[in-house]
């Protein structure tokens, strides 16, 4: 069966190179993919064929660089980086770019933000980690991502650490949960590492897993908001039964740490949940949709749309020694990831089966950073909690904020997750009326545009040469040069009666900030 699928897949991949492309949309697409098909593509293509779908055209270099920057480091590329990439003639320049992005500090910044969503890193209600512990925990997560700590080690540290919430940061995993009953903890563990919701399990199964977390205790110290998380030092008299999610019941000896027993099961190479949940989550983060969707709702009656693809990625994760960056590279270097956002045909299933790259609004934090980058300003965040006062420098980027309860009307308006539950669906990237008002007409946006040093620099550089000025604005905002039509529209607008040149530039910037191309990852 598997060989047949592989043969089919190879044929499909071959066909892909032969099929004449549909009309190519400039400036977003190109006719021939510049990258070879990889293991991801063979599976995706075979699956598309089964569902009667065709993949979209390859995306252009300009689309790719913007997409890769936003998806991998949550940051817009600078015009110089775009120019360099567009002029680069190396055949493997996309793979080189991906490697470079994965090595940047912003990679750890941005993915810490995503992991902190899943791990509910928040000082205030209802998680109540408190500021000191939030900082310690965030720093630990950031270090783990920057050093590419193998994912099984990451999980083991979170599941089995004991000590002070200030000094042994991963113990905060057990504090960042609403409720401290064993069943609450089991729910958080299953959601985070198994991508599944135990409220859909039988009570017996839930209790069986909860038993692994029944000996955790929390102790206060004399220091403000310090808390020790450890095993109850009072040993039980007899072995305690606990049932793994696969139904096997174990007797835990009094001197054994039941958390470690659970972790040993979860992190074994053939565990059916751990790798699946991890690769599915990463896929969802990069491709906008899980192979099992929602990515934290894995259960028998919610099957993957592409089982071969999921199995392939799981194997790759295990074989690579739980190297998540290996999975990133597989996905980012695939033709599947590098498809255009314009689906071929009008099937509503194109996004579901990954026959195009799905457009989706920039995340709240990424969007405000992008706006601040253009405006050359920071957000001056403050913490609502007086003690200890978290000092946040004015120019600190939003994707680096540790605390999910940092006050910000913008972030709330644009759907930052509340970090109350760790569910992926907490993040809301839908557009609302209030967001639209804010972007179209707020003084905050207007001031960013009018007071921007960066735009002033542009205007200086393009003085007396309107087309050059338009080009620079486009490179800064949309990471590409304007098309002929766009150039004409922009130049015509500048001739509007009664409009000062300064205002014409401001309005062009305003229009591009409000364009779908700016607001939506594509």
């Amino acid at each position, binding site marked *: 069966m598997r060989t047949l699928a592989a043969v089919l897949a190879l044929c499909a991949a071959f066909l892909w190179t032969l099929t004449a492309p549909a009309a190519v949309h400039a400036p977003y697409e190109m006719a021939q993919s510049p990258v070879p098909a990889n293991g991801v593509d063979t599976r995706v293509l075979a699956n598309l064929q089964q569902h009667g779908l065709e993949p979209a055209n390859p995306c252009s270099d300009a689309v790719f660089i913007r997409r890769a920057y936003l998806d991998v480091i949550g940051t817009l590329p600078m015009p110089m980086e775009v120019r360099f990439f567009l002029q680069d003639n190396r055949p493997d320049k996309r793979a080189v770019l991906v490697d470079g992005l994965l090595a940047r500090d912003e990679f750890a910044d941005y993915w810490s933000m995503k992991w902190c969503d899943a791990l509910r890193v928040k000082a205030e209600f*209802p998680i*109540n980690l408190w500021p000191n512990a939030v900082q310690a925990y965030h720093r630990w997560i950031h270090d783990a991502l920057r050093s590419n700590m193998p994912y099984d080690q990451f999980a083991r540290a979170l599941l089995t650490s004991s000590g002070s919430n200030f000094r042994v940061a991963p113990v905060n995993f057990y504090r960042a949960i609403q409720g401290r009953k064993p069943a609450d903890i089991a*729910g958080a563990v299953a959601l985070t590492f198994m991508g599944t919701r135990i409220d859909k399990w039988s009570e017996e199964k839930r209790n069986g897993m909860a038993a692994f977390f029944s000996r955790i205790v929390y102790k206060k110290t004399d220091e403000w908001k310090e808390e020790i998380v450890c095993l109850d030092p009072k040993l039980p008299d007899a072995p305690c039964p606990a049932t793994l999610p696969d139904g096997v019941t174990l007797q835990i000896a009094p001197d054994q740490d039941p958390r470690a027993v659970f972790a040993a099961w979860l992190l074994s190479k053939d565990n059916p949940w751990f790798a699946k949940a991890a690769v599915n989550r990463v896929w969802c983060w990069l491709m906008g949709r899980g192979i099992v969707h929602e990515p934290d709702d894995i259960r028998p009656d919610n099957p993957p749309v592409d089982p071969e693809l999921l199995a392939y990625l799981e194997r790759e994760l295990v074989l690579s020694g739980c190297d998540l960056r290996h999975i990133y590279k597989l996905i980012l270097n695939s033709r599947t990831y590098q498809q255009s956002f314009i689906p071929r045909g009008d099937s509503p299933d194109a996004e579901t089966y990954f026959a195009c790259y799905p*457009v989706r609004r920039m995340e709240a934090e990424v969007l405000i950073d992008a706006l601040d980058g253009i405006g050359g300003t920071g957000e001056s965040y403050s913490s609502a909690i007086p003690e200890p006062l978290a000092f946040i420098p004015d120019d600190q980027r939003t994707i680096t904020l540790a605390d999910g309860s940092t006050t910000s009307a913008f972030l709330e308006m644009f759907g930052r997750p*509340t970090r109350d539950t760790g569910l992926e669906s907490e993040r809301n990237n839908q557009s609302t009326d209030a967001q*639209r008002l804010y972007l179209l*007409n707020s003084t905050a946006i207007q001031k960013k545009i009018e007071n921007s040093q960066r735009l002033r620099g542009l205007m200086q550089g393009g003085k007396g040469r309107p087309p050059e000025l338009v080009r620079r604005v486009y490179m800064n905002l949309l990471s590409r040069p304007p098309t002929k039509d766009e150039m004409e529209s922009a130049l015509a607008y500048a001739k*509007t009666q009664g409009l000062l040149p300064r205002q014409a530039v401001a309005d062009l910037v305003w229009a591009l900030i409000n364009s779908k191309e700016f607001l*939506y990852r594509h």
Partner: protein
Amino acid sequence: MNGSFGKDAITRRALLQRGLLGAAGLALLGQPALRAQAPAKKAQAKAVIQIWMWGGPSHLDTFDPKPEAGHDYCGPLNKPIPTNVDGIRICELLPLLAQQADKYAIIRSMTHGINAHETASYMVQTGHKPGDGLVYPSVGAVVSAFKGYDHGYQGLIPPYIVLEESQGRFSEAGFLGPRYMPFCTGGDPAKQPFAVEGVVAEGISEERQRERRELLHGLDTLGKALPANPRLAQLDQCEAKAYDLILGDSGKLFDLSQESAEMRDQYGKSTFGQSCLMARRLVEHGVPYVTINYKGWDTHKQHFETMRRKLPEMDKGISTLLQDLTSRGLLDSTVIWWGGEFGRTPKVQWEAPWNGGRGHFGNCFCAMLAGGGFKGGRVVGASDETGEAVAERPVYPQDLIGSIYERLGIDPDGPLPNSRGLDVQVMPASDNGPGQGRLSELV
């Protein structure tokens, strides 16, 4: 429903009444939560103005003075003044409110026992205790769900407005989701113009608004390449609505210069005073829920100095609001709810580093309710002689909020519809609450 019916004994007449009155008729009888309740009373109130005393105001220095407790408790504010209702006295710094005590009720026995801002804020604004893994929506979000766009509200001004900054203590929409989040105006109504974020832009003429909108459409290259995408279509819809507000008449509601100078003066030129005026305009326009997020009451230090500075502006703002709503015939349909997350330690902290401050105090504090059918000139409950404990009729946040919902015609014991599929009630069941239930004495 106290008195005549027991929890399970419900008369045939009551059953018939419910069957006739309830929209869903007898089908509702299957639900135990409903069975124990009297039919919801006809809604009298249409709107709520919530004056949120961010930080927790001192109960002793506002509506529950304790001059007999001595200097250690009262500090310099030890001469409360009588009001226009016999037997009710309030802080000496509230002389204007003292003349209108017949319009409001004071609850002097609020309690929840929590001394941490965020948990107390959550309890006082949702009526729910934390800890069951759910974050419940605040009152404004619930009202927005029952009285907003889902139920025929058509205004371009969103149904739940916060003047001016968001509170940021917890997610106000809770599990109801972002659709029910408040619209925070930003800006400062004491300045001209009141620059409501997104609605009022300074220095952009209407003509330029129209021209640059055309530019935006002309440059929509990606939108043209992807015409059928539902997410992009949603953005277009939002844009159309946004421009209705920017270019249409609704946005003029925020233009306080349309009010007379005398009126603006009467409310006080402070941000709070003008927020009260703005709240009245919004309610008059049909907005069902307005929160004035009134900051600055977390007075650990310099407490009495702060009281002397802030209470007069509060006095002016709220008393004018009461008068103005009354003279416009709006007070009967508008609930005013004043209160913070807790009170403050009745015993003054004279020692360093506080040097005359008051700490957090959730054991006993006060709230004020007016309008919307609540009876004025009343005091509910009482604190003990020092204000440190409830002496009679403890009122829990769920009792107070449930009473407001009843005024609005929202059944506190009914289901709270939500997109997460949770089977939850609007409020915790009233018949096994910790207190003596909703404020029937004010109805």
